[in-house]
């Protein structure tokens, strides 16, 4: 599903360069559950941003579902993101002014889906994640675990092939974290490819494979 070849990312620093990612070469197959680990500053989140096409300034080759992302324009990359990728953030990043149902509706509204169809998809998703009773609540009225549950629901609502999760359990206590990881496991079993960043070995154990980064290099794959 994902092929990276000699991917590099740097920031200019004086006359030189400060590398964040160095010669990243790896493959991730469709249906895999991969964990990226490493100390702070290793380049984990940067790699996730590049995979999610949130960051466009890098060199090397990146193929997503055989499409050469490195050759695509920013607009085409944004389309690819919309079509295949869902995000889960450590801080949940639900929109405060919107209810749970409206937060779920947001990705659909950006994909030009008809309102009636959107309503049905949101209703299904609320039911699937067992949060129907919370659909009219605002994020501030939910616990952290519930917020992350809604965030995961929002990430999968547009039916992405790939979920990128940046420390999804980082702000949760263990039982809530377990609940989210079980959810990821289930989604993965249903066919969604998942790439997560975590520091937690227990949550990393849910994945099929662990890639370790240090100072921008892959030190273990």
């Amino acid at each position, binding site marked *: 599903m994902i092929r990276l070849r000699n991917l590099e990312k740097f920031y200019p620093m004086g006359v030189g360069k400060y590398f964040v990612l160095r010669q990243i070469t790896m493959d991730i197959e469709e249906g895999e559950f991969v964990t990226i680990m490493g100390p702070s500053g290793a380049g984990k989140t940067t790699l996730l941003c590049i995979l999610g096409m949130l960051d466009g300034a890098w060199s090397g080759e990146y193929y997503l579902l055989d499409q050469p992302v490195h050759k695509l324009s920013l607009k085409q990359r*944004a389309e690819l993101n919309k079509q295949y990728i869902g995000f889960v953030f450590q801080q949940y990043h639900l929109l405060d002014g919107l209810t749970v149902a409206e937060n779920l509706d947001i990705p659909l509204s*950006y994909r030009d889906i008809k309102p009636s169809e959107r309503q049905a998809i949101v209703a299904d998703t609320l039911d699937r994640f067992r949060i129907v009773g919370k659909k009219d609540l605002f994020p501030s009225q939910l616990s952290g675990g519930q917020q992350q549950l809604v965030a995961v629901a929002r990430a999968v609502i547009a039916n992405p092939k790939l979920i990128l999760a*940046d420390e999804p359990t980082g702000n949760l206590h263990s039982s809530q974290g377990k609940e989210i990881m079980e959810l990821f496991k289930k989604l993965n079993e249903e066919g969604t490819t998942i790439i997560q960043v975590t520091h937690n070995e227990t949550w990393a154990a849910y994945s099929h494979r662990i890639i370790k980064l240090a100072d921008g290099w892959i030190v273990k794959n």
Partner: protein
Amino acid sequence: MSTLLQDLRYGLRLLAKNPGFTAVVILTLALGIGANTAIFSVINAVMLRMLPVEKPEQLVQIRFRSPRSADARTTYTNPLWEQVRDHQDVFSGVFAWSPQEFDLADGGEARNVHGIYASGAYFSTLGVRPAIGRLMAPEDDRRGCGGVAVLGYGFWQQHYAGAESAIGSLLRLNGHSFPVIGVTQRGFFGTDVGDQLAVALPICAEAIIRGKDSLLDHRSGWWLLMMGRLAPGTRSEQATAHLNVLAPQIFAACVPPAWRLQDQEVFKSYTFATTPAATGLTGYSGLRNQYERPLEILMVVVGFVLLIVCANIASLMMARAAARQREFAVRLSLGASRARLIRQLLTESLALSTTGALFGILFGQWGSALLVRFVSTTTNRVFLDLSMDGRVLGFAAAMGIVTGLLFGLLPAWRATRVSLTSAMKGGEEQPSESRSQFRSGRWIVAVQVALSLVLLVGTGLFVRTFTNLLTLNPGFDRKNVLMVSVNVHNAGISPGARVPFYGQVLERLKSLPGVVSVSQSWLTPISGLEWNQDIQPQGYQPPAGEMPLVWFNGVTPEYFATLRTPLVAGRTFDSGDTATSPRVAVVSETLARRFFPNVDPIGKYFRMSGPDPGSTEQLQIVGVVKDSKYISLREADLPFAYVPLTQAPFIPEDSSFEIRTAVNPTSMIPSAREAIGGANKAASLRFVTLAQQVDDSLVPERLLAMLSGFFGGLALLLTAIGLYGVMAYLVTRRTHEIGIRMALGARQGSILRLVLRDSAVLLAAGIAIGIAGAFWITQFVRHLLFGLTPRDTETLAVAVVVLLAVGLLASYLPARRATKVDPMVALRYE
């Protein structure tokens, strides 16, 4: 559409969550849009709105033009009107009318109402229908008629409480009774934009009111206006061509016999012209002539204020958008396009601006009514139909949309240039983004400063123009002078009895306690009335093409003392200047200088036309007085001659008395009324103080000075708030940096300078742009200024100093707060 509604719903919810921000934005927008709508409403009523009649676009003014002049004239004699009425065949209808003031009182203090003499086809050609009764018909306007009266709807409501019994009742006007036959439809105010028709009499009734002085057969009495309705399919040019076929015959039949032969020949070659009459812009409106330019200037002024309002709101929106960076980043990462986010932000801006526009319409209604009250004077009550129409609503709606885009677009554009990695990394704002947004905020404030400076310079110019006029020495002392205009038409005093009657009034007024002196004159200063004619000064050969035109007034000997117009040489009039003694005149310094240069004018003569057609009489100059203003305070000193009333060619039915008092002049009105009433109760009186009369002539100047002053102050306040906001934001953003500086030993003074230097740069940039802008824009108001030029350095310097002072004060407060930063707290801040 559904996503648009979703954006709107979300936007409204956000605005409701920030009621303070929302209220401030809506209120300032409402004020800005309201001010614009108010001025536009008045412009609409004065210049753009169609006359309240049937198919107004078919109406044309009928003017005539002399081959000697490019300007077309609008007033006709009655013989000319009758010729056009009886011979034209190009209009489906044609009518004439003359605006008048009719006196409702039977003697004593006048109660004037605005009326017209109208030809019989006036209402039918306009397509006006009666509310009750019937309107005037051609049969009502026949020579020798008994006269009928048609009431305006407003007058009927006000004076008859809308009672149907008004029909058939007798209405007393100028001491004569006219049966009321009908009331015009509601909403019809007449054909003169700015006036409200109270009563219409047929033209033939002029002979009843003016008696022997009637102008019906007078070929030099220019008092009627003319309008025609184009027949369907006829163009204005065709109508003009048709009229000009008739022109030689019409003008030849109405040649003024008193004119010189060569002028009579020119008169016969006059031609007609027609222009659209549907709106005040091209139709008849004294108000338009007086206020067109001031209203255009005020429109620009309030436009500037609205731009400053937009700039302030844009700054607020930028700060608000900066706080929403995380939200935008998340939305983008969830698949939103930048265009979609901009649309969402613009939806919020437009929700705010349209709400502001709705309140602005309300403010605009109040403001325009206030404006009309402001331009009304004691002698001229202005009426304008300010009801909301599609044009005003469209204007307010356009303002709402344009302002929404103006203050929304830049913040939306800036705010959506967000780094998506920040969303993944916790949503913290990147320093480079914040700097770029801040640069935009500074740029906006610099523009505000520039706009404010232009407004302040304009304010300064108009205020100084007004004060220059107020403090100008007009050649008379306007303080403590009560004037009363006495009309004896209804008092049954024959021309032969007028002199003794006026003499009696003079004596009675003189004997009143509190009176210093009393005089009588034909005209009073700055009254809007004038009497001028060519003279032939002794020994003066006018250059080719120059007419030695002189302005006159007939006065009693006390006039100069009463108005305190100083005598420069010779003498003023005395009891020796009688009807039988040699004709004498007192002249102004300008007259003496122009026609008698380098010689003593005392004892010199000039000739002027006499009372009989073609006759002249010789006057000897016996005195020279200081120049004084005659028609307007702005005029250059005119060559001015006074003649004694005892030697005046005729005794008019109305005359003015000037009463200099030792007390408040208005307190003398009851005793003066009683004194004149003692001589004759039926004489009609109109009181006004000289100060008030001069003051009324300055309404456009006062309007510009006051409103530009108000809006200039508002602009200054808004700019100060904008500057304060940006500097406060800057200080908050730099708290950490300031903390480090202070920890490293920076003193309070250096921190203060650090912050103030930033605002000084902004102010300097804004002021530089503002000076260039003011230099360019003030050239367009040159002719409205008095006693100073558009590039008046004193005004510019004061405006710059005021703006600098206010700007630095607005920056000082945040700067002072910066000096109070506790390094320990600041370093923990981030």
